[in-house]
C-alpha cells in the first residue's frame, strides 16, 4: 500500500501495526503528531493499546520501564527537552535491559530555545547504552519503527532502542511511504518473547510476576556494579549481528535494504572522496553525488545508520582507499575535538592499515539551519582543494 505520510504519521502507523501493549507519551514539538495520531487510533478503537497520557517525559519513560518489566511491548516518543527530562530513566531502562522502543524527533536543545532539527538531543544520550539509529526519510522512519521492536526484543539483545528522525525535515514533510498490510507487519514484528534469567538453579521469566517474585534493579555496589555494566556493554556490541540479520529479513519481505543495517555505502566503490553523515542529510548528499558523478567526480557517501553500536569495522571498509573524508556533524561537542561522529570516525581511522585519508569535520545545521545541495557540493570542493584546511569548519554559518 502506497500512501502520503509525514515522518511522524509514518511512525504512528508503524506503532499501530506493531500492536504495542502500552504507549506512554507526553507531547512535544516536533514529535506531537506521533502522539496525536496514535491517540486518534486509540479513540477510534483501532488499537487495544493501553494509552497513558502522563504529566511529563520523566513519567512517560518511567511508565514504559514498569510496563516493559511486566513483559509488555512498550513505546514512547519524544524530542529535545523531553528526552533531556527523561535522562535519568534512559540509563535505568538500558541498565535493566528492558526492550523499550522510543522515537526521537531530533530537535535542538535549549538555550537559546529552538524547535527545529539537529542531533544534539540524541547525542546527549550517546553513552546511555541504548541502541541509536538515525533515519533518512519518512519511509525509513516507518521501517525503523517495525525493525526496532524486533531488535530490542531479540533474546540476544534485550536493550532499548531509540531512533531519530530529523525534526520538521522528516517529521512534518509529506512523503511517499510504502506500508505493509497489517497482518504482514505483525507477522514480521511478532510477539514479545520473555528472556529467561537464572536465579540460583531456577530458570525464570525475566518479568515481574507475583507468583515468581524477583528483584529488578537491586543495589549493586563496588562488589558487582562493574560486572553488570561490562555485561551491558557486551550486549550492545553483540546487537550489531542482530541488526544486520533483521535488516536482511526486512529487505526480503519489503525490497528495502538499508545497507547492511549498520551503514549504507552509496557509490563508494571507486570514490576518492566521501562524506560520512547521518539522518536526512544523507538523502540530500545522494542527490549531490549523482550530479557530481555525472560531471566525472569520484565522490561517495557513507551513511551511518546505527550510531550506537558504532559500526567501526564497516566504516573502515568503506574508508579504505579514499583520499579524503568529510564527517558531517549536526551537533557540537563543546570543548571537544569537533562533533561526536567526527570523534568516533577519527578514532576508528587509527586502526586503518596503510595510508590514511585526510579527515575533516564539518559542523552544520544546528537549530534547523538549512543544509543545501550547494553547501554539500562545497564540502566536496573543500575536501578536494590543495589549500590548507581547518580540522573543524562550520557550514552555513554567518562568518
Amino acid at each position, binding site marked *: 500500500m502506497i500512501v502520503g505520510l509525514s515522518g511522524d504519521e509514518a511512525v504512528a502507523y508503524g506503532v499501530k501495526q506493531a500492536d504495542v501493549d502500552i504507549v506512554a507519551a507526553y507531547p512535544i514539538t516536533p514529535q506531537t503528531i506521533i502522539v496525536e495520531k496514535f491517540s486518534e487510533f486509540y479513540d477510534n478503537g483501532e488499537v487495544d493499546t493501553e494509552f497513558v497520557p502522563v504529566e511529563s517525559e520523566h513519567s512517560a519513560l518511567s511508565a514504559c520501564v514498569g510496563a516493559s518489566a511486566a513483559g509488555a511491548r512498550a513505546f514512547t516518543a519524544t524530542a529535545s527537552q523531553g528526552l533531556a527530562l527523561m535522562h535519568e530513566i534512559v540509563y535505568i531502562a538500558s*541498565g*535493566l*535491559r*528492558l526492550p523499550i522502543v522510543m522515537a526521537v524527533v531530533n530537535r535542538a536543545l535549549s538555550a537559546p530555545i529552538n524547535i527545529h532539527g539537529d542531533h544534539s538531543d540524541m547525542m546527549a544520550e550517546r553513552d546511555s547504552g541504548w541502541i541509536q539509529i538515525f533515519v533518512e526519510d519518512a519511509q525509513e522512519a516507518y521501517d525503523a519503527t517495525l525493525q526496532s521492536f524486533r531488535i530490542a526484543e531479540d533474546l540476544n539483545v*534485550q536493550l532499548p532502542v531509540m531512533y531519530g528522525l530529523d525534526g520538521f525535515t522528516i517529521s512534518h514533510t509529506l512523503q511517499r511511504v510504502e506500508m505493509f498490510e497489517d497482518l504482514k507487519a505483525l507477522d514480521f514484528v511478532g510477539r514479545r518473547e520473555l*528472556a529467561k*534469567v*537464572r*536465579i*540460583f538453579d531456577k530458570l525464570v521469566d*525475566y518479568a515481574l510476576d507475583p507468583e515468581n*517474585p*524477583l*528483584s*529488578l*534493579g*537491586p543495589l*549493586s555496589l563496588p562488589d*558487582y556494579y*562493574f*560486572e*553488570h555494566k*561490562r*555485561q551491558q556493554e*557486551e550486549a550492545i556490541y553483540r546487537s550489531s549481528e542482530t541488526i544486520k540479520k533483521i535488516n536482511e529479513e526486512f529487505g526480503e519481505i519489503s525490497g528495502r535494504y538499508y545497507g547492511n543495517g549498520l551503514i549504507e555505502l552509496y557509490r563508494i566503490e571507486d570514490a576518492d572522496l566521501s562524506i560520512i553523515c547521518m539522518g536526512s542529510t544523507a538523502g540530500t548528499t545522494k542527490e549531490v553525488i549523482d550530479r557530481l558523478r555525472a560531471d566525472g567526480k569520484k565522490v561517495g557517501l557513507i551513511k551511518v545508520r546505527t550510531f550506537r553500536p558504532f559500526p567501526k569495522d564497516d566504516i573502515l571498509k568503506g574508508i579504505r582507499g579514499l583520499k579524503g573524508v568529510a564527517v558531517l556533524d549536526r551537533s557540537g561537542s563543546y570543548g571537544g575535538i569537533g562533533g561526536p561522529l567526527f570523534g568516533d570516525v577519527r578514532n576508528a581511522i587509527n586502526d586503518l592499515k596503510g595510508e590514511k585519508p585526510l579527515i575533516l569535520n564539518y559542523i552544520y545545521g544546528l537549530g534547523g539551519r538549512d543544509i543545501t545541495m550547494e553547501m554539500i557540493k562545497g564540502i566536496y570542493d573543500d575536501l578536494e582543494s590543495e589549500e590548507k584546511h581547518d580540522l573543524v569548519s562550520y557550514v552555513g554559518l554567518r562568518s
Partner: protein
Amino acid sequence: MSEEDRNWRELPLGATWRSSCEYLTGDWRTEHPIIDQEVCTRCLICFMYCPEGAIKWDEEKNLVSIDYDYCKGCGICADECPRKCIEMKRDE
C-alpha cells in the same frame, strides 16, 4: 560455582537477583515500635503510612502487628498514631 563468584558473563540479565523478600532489612534498625493492643482502635493509619509494608493486619483476629524482619524502625507509625499507642524502644 558459588553465587558470589559469578563473573560478568555469568550474572543474570539486568542485575536481577533473588527475591527482595530474602533481604531482612529489619537488622538496619536501632529502635523498634511496640503497639499497646489495649489502647489501639485498629484504625489502620499506621498500616497505611508504613513505607515498608511491615505492619500486618490480621482481619480474622482483628490484630495489628509489626513484622520485625522488615521494620527499619523509622518511627513513622508512632508519629502518625492518633491514639499514641505505638512506642519506639531502643533495640538491645
